[in-house]
Protein backbone atom coordinates (compact mmCIF):
# COMPACT_ATOMS: atom_id res chain seq x y z
CA UNK A 1 0.00 0.00 0.00
CA UNK A 2 1.22 3.48 -0.86
CA UNK A 3 -0.18 6.43 1.04
CA UNK A 4 0.66 10.08 0.38
CA UNK A 5 -0.63 11.71 3.55
CA UNK A 6 -1.35 15.41 3.88
CA UNK A 7 -2.06 15.13 7.63
CA UNK A 8 0.01 13.66 10.48
CA UNK A 9 -0.14 9.87 10.85
CA UNK A 10 0.32 7.62 13.87
CA UNK A 11 3.25 5.17 13.35
CA UNK A 12 2.11 2.86 16.15
CA UNK A 13 -1.38 2.52 14.68
CA UNK A 14 0.07 1.98 11.20
CA UNK A 15 2.38 -0.76 12.49
CA UNK A 16 -0.48 -2.44 14.36
CA UNK A 17 -2.66 -2.53 11.27
CA UNK A 18 0.23 -3.73 9.10
CA UNK A 19 1.46 -6.50 11.35
CA UNK A 20 -2.07 -7.82 11.90
CA UNK A 21 -2.63 -7.96 8.15
CA UNK A 22 0.74 -9.69 7.67
CA UNK A 23 0.17 -12.13 10.51
CA UNK A 24 1.60 -15.06 8.53
CA UNK A 25 5.01 -13.41 8.12
CA UNK A 26 7.80 -14.30 10.53
CA UNK A 27 9.51 -10.91 10.30
CA UNK A 28 8.28 -7.33 10.18
CA UNK A 29 10.66 -4.38 9.85
CA UNK A 30 9.53 -0.79 10.08
CA UNK A 31 11.36 2.47 9.53
CA UNK A 32 10.18 5.91 10.63
CA UNK A 33 11.92 9.08 9.48
CA UNK A 34 11.15 12.22 11.45
CA UNK A 35 11.61 15.95 11.00
CA UNK A 36 14.80 16.96 12.74
CA UNK A 37 14.74 19.93 15.10
CA UNK A 38 18.13 21.36 14.14
CA UNK A 39 20.13 21.97 10.96
CA UNK A 40 23.73 22.50 11.91
CA UNK A 41 23.67 25.39 14.38
CA UNK A 42 20.26 26.55 13.18
CA UNK A 43 16.80 25.69 14.55
CA UNK A 44 14.28 24.08 12.24
CA UNK A 45 10.82 25.65 12.51
CA UNK A 46 9.06 23.53 9.89
CA UNK A 47 9.57 21.25 6.92
CA UNK A 48 7.57 21.73 3.76
CA UNK A 49 7.14 18.72 1.45
CA UNK A 50 5.87 18.92 -2.09
CA UNK A 51 4.98 16.15 -4.54
CA UNK A 52 3.68 15.71 -8.08
CA UNK A 53 0.27 14.04 -7.64
CA UNK A 54 -0.03 10.88 -9.72
CA UNK A 55 3.61 10.90 -10.83
CA UNK A 56 4.94 10.63 -7.27
CA UNK A 57 2.65 7.69 -6.47
CA UNK A 58 3.84 5.97 -9.64
CA UNK A 59 7.51 6.59 -8.82
CA UNK A 60 6.99 4.96 -5.41
CA UNK A 61 5.08 2.09 -7.01
CA UNK A 62 8.08 1.41 -9.24
CA UNK A 63 10.42 1.44 -6.24
CA UNK A 64 8.15 -1.02 -4.41
CA UNK A 65 7.98 -3.28 -7.48
CA UNK A 66 11.75 -3.36 -7.67
CA UNK A 67 11.93 -4.35 -4.00
CA UNK A 68 9.40 -7.13 -4.61
CA UNK A 69 11.49 -8.44 -7.50
CA UNK A 70 14.61 -8.51 -5.36
CA UNK A 71 13.26 -9.94 -2.11
CA UNK A 72 10.54 -12.39 -1.09
CA UNK A 73 8.26 -9.81 0.50
CA UNK A 74 4.87 -10.80 1.89
CA UNK A 75 3.63 -7.24 2.17
CA UNK A 76 4.91 -3.66 2.12
CA UNK A 77 3.40 -0.39 3.26
CA UNK A 78 4.81 3.04 2.44
CA UNK A 79 3.41 6.24 3.96
CA UNK A 80 4.91 9.59 3.02
CA UNK A 81 3.83 12.98 4.31
CA UNK A 82 3.39 16.08 2.19
CA UNK A 83 2.55 19.62 3.22
CA UNK A 84 3.88 21.43 6.26
CA UNK A 85 5.43 19.34 9.04
CA UNK A 86 6.62 20.26 12.53
CA UNK A 87 9.91 19.08 14.08
CA UNK A 88 9.51 15.57 15.54
CA UNK A 89 6.66 14.65 13.21
CA UNK A 90 7.03 11.49 11.11
CA UNK A 91 7.82 12.23 7.45
CA UNK A 92 7.94 8.70 6.16
CA UNK A 93 7.17 5.19 7.35
CA UNK A 94 8.07 1.97 5.59
CA UNK A 95 6.83 -1.43 6.81
CA UNK A 96 7.99 -4.70 5.26
CA UNK A 97 6.82 -8.22 6.13
CA UNK A 98 8.70 -11.31 5.06
CA UNK A 99 9.25 -14.92 6.08
CA UNK A 100 12.82 -14.19 7.26
CA UNK A 101 14.40 -11.19 8.90
CA UNK A 102 17.24 -10.73 6.39
CA UNK A 103 14.83 -10.09 3.52
CA UNK A 104 12.69 -7.76 5.64
CA UNK A 105 15.70 -5.71 6.82
CA UNK A 106 17.25 -5.44 3.36
CA UNK A 107 14.00 -4.56 1.60
CA UNK A 108 13.16 -1.83 4.15
CA UNK A 109 16.71 -0.48 3.90
CA UNK A 110 16.50 -0.48 0.09
CA UNK A 111 13.07 1.19 0.07
CA UNK A 112 14.35 4.01 2.26
CA UNK A 113 17.50 4.55 0.18
CA UNK A 114 15.38 4.78 -2.97
CA UNK A 115 12.67 6.94 -1.38
CA UNK A 116 15.42 9.35 -0.32
CA UNK A 117 16.96 9.65 -3.77
CA UNK A 118 14.41 8.56 -6.41
CA UNK A 119 10.85 9.20 -5.20
CA UNK A 120 9.37 12.46 -6.46
CA UNK A 121 9.35 14.70 -3.41
CA UNK A 122 10.89 18.07 -2.81
CA UNK A 123 11.46 19.42 0.65
CA UNK A 124 12.22 22.81 2.08
CA UNK A 125 13.48 23.39 5.57
CA UNK A 126 12.17 26.54 7.21
CA UNK A 127 14.88 27.56 9.68
CA UNK A 128 15.24 30.45 12.08
CA UNK A 129 17.97 31.70 9.75
CA UNK A 130 15.99 31.32 6.51
CA UNK A 131 14.65 28.70 4.12
CA UNK A 132 16.57 26.02 2.22
CA UNK A 133 15.57 23.37 -0.28
CA UNK A 134 17.11 20.07 0.80
CA UNK A 135 18.81 17.74 -1.64
CA UNK A 136 20.05 14.24 -0.81
CA UNK A 137 23.45 14.11 0.88
CA UNK A 138 26.41 12.38 -0.77
CA UNK A 139 25.85 9.54 1.70
CA UNK A 140 22.27 9.13 0.48
CA UNK A 141 23.40 8.68 -3.12
CA UNK A 142 26.16 6.32 -1.95
CA UNK A 143 23.64 4.30 0.09
CA UNK A 144 21.31 4.02 -2.90
CA UNK A 145 24.21 2.93 -5.12
CA UNK A 146 24.85 -0.08 -2.83
CA UNK A 147 21.85 -1.85 -4.37
CA UNK A 148 22.86 -1.41 -7.99
CA UNK A 149 22.61 -4.83 -9.58
CA UNK A 150 23.86 -6.88 -6.66
CA UNK A 151 20.66 -8.31 -5.20
CA UNK A 152 19.22 -9.09 -8.59
CA UNK A 153 22.45 -10.88 -9.55
CA UNK A 154 22.10 -13.01 -6.43
CA UNK A 155 18.61 -13.98 -7.47
CA UNK A 156 19.77 -15.18 -10.85
CA UNK A 157 22.35 -17.57 -9.42
Amino acid at each position, binding site marked *: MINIASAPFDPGAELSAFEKKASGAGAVVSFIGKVRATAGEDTVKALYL*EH*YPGVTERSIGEIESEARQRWAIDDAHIIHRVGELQPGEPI*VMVCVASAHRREAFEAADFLMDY*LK*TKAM*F*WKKEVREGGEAW*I*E*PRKEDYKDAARWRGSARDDEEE
Partner: protein
Amino acid sequence: MARILFFGKLADAAGGRSRDWPLNEATKTIDDLVSALCAKEDALASALNEKSVRFIINEMIAPRDAAISDEDEIAFLPPVSGG
Protein backbone atom coordinates in the same frame (compact mmCIF):
# COMPACT_ATOMS: atom_id res chain seq x y z
CA MET B 1 -1.77 26.70 -24.22
CA ALA B 2 0.72 24.36 -22.59
CA ARG B 3 0.55 23.91 -18.83
CA ILE B 4 3.91 24.35 -17.17
CA LEU B 5 4.63 23.08 -13.65
CA PHE B 6 7.61 24.05 -11.51
CA PHE B 7 8.58 22.01 -8.45
CA GLY B 8 10.74 22.70 -5.43
CA LYS B 9 13.28 25.48 -5.83
CA LEU B 10 12.26 25.95 -9.47
CA ALA B 11 8.87 27.23 -8.30
CA ASP B 12 10.70 29.79 -6.16
CA ALA B 13 12.78 30.85 -9.18
CA ALA B 14 9.68 31.03 -11.39
CA GLY B 15 7.71 32.94 -8.77
CA GLY B 16 4.91 30.38 -8.89
CA ARG B 17 4.15 26.67 -9.15
CA SER B 18 2.48 26.76 -12.56
CA ARG B 19 1.79 28.92 -15.55
CA ASP B 20 -0.03 28.60 -18.85
CA TRP B 21 2.17 29.34 -21.82
CA PRO B 22 1.25 29.58 -25.49
CA LEU B 23 3.58 27.52 -27.67
CA ASN B 24 4.50 28.68 -31.15
CA GLU B 25 6.84 27.94 -34.08
CA ALA B 26 9.84 28.82 -31.91
CA THR B 27 8.91 26.46 -29.03
CA LYS B 28 8.73 22.97 -30.46
CA THR B 29 10.88 21.18 -27.86
CA ILE B 30 11.54 21.45 -24.14
CA ASP B 31 14.87 23.01 -25.02
CA ASP B 32 13.07 25.73 -26.98
CA LEU B 33 10.67 26.28 -24.10
CA VAL B 34 13.53 26.66 -21.64
CA SER B 35 15.08 29.30 -23.92
CA ALA B 36 11.79 31.15 -24.22
CA LEU B 37 11.18 31.09 -20.47
CA CYS B 38 14.74 32.13 -19.73
CA ALA B 39 14.77 35.04 -22.17
CA LYS B 40 12.65 37.06 -19.78
CA GLU B 41 13.81 35.91 -16.36
CA ASP B 42 17.41 35.69 -15.19
CA ALA B 43 16.71 33.81 -11.93
CA LEU B 44 14.68 31.21 -13.79
CA ALA B 45 17.32 30.98 -16.52
CA SER B 46 20.09 29.89 -14.20
CA ALA B 47 17.77 27.53 -12.28
CA LEU B 48 16.37 25.80 -15.39
CA ASN B 49 19.79 25.41 -16.97
CA GLU B 50 21.21 23.43 -14.06
CA LYS B 51 22.29 20.01 -15.29
CA SER B 52 20.32 18.27 -12.54
CA VAL B 53 16.94 19.53 -13.81
CA ARG B 54 14.70 16.83 -15.30
CA PHE B 55 11.66 17.16 -17.53
CA ILE B 56 8.27 15.49 -17.59
CA ILE B 57 5.76 15.70 -20.43
CA ASN B 58 2.26 14.47 -19.60
CA GLU B 59 3.53 12.58 -16.54
CA MET B 60 6.35 10.80 -18.43
CA ILE B 61 10.05 11.55 -18.03
CA ALA B 62 11.26 13.15 -21.28
CA PRO B 63 14.64 14.25 -22.70
CA ARG B 64 15.47 17.90 -23.26
CA ASP B 65 14.94 17.60 -27.02
CA ALA B 66 11.48 16.02 -26.70
CA ALA B 67 8.75 17.58 -28.84
CA ILE B 68 6.01 19.52 -27.07
CA SER B 69 2.68 20.90 -28.17
CA ASP B 70 -0.20 22.93 -26.84
CA GLU B 71 -2.38 20.94 -24.41
CA ASP B 72 0.76 19.25 -22.96
CA GLU B 73 1.54 19.38 -19.27
CA ILE B 74 5.26 20.05 -18.98
CA ALA B 75 6.96 19.79 -15.60
CA PHE B 76 10.41 20.96 -14.52
CA LEU B 77 11.91 18.95 -11.67
CA PRO B 78 14.93 19.82 -9.52
CA PRO B 79 16.71 16.94 -7.72
CA VAL B 80 14.20 14.94 -5.68
CA SER B 81 14.57 14.44 -1.95
CA GLY B 82 12.11 12.27 -0.08
CA GLY B 83 12.12 10.62 3.31
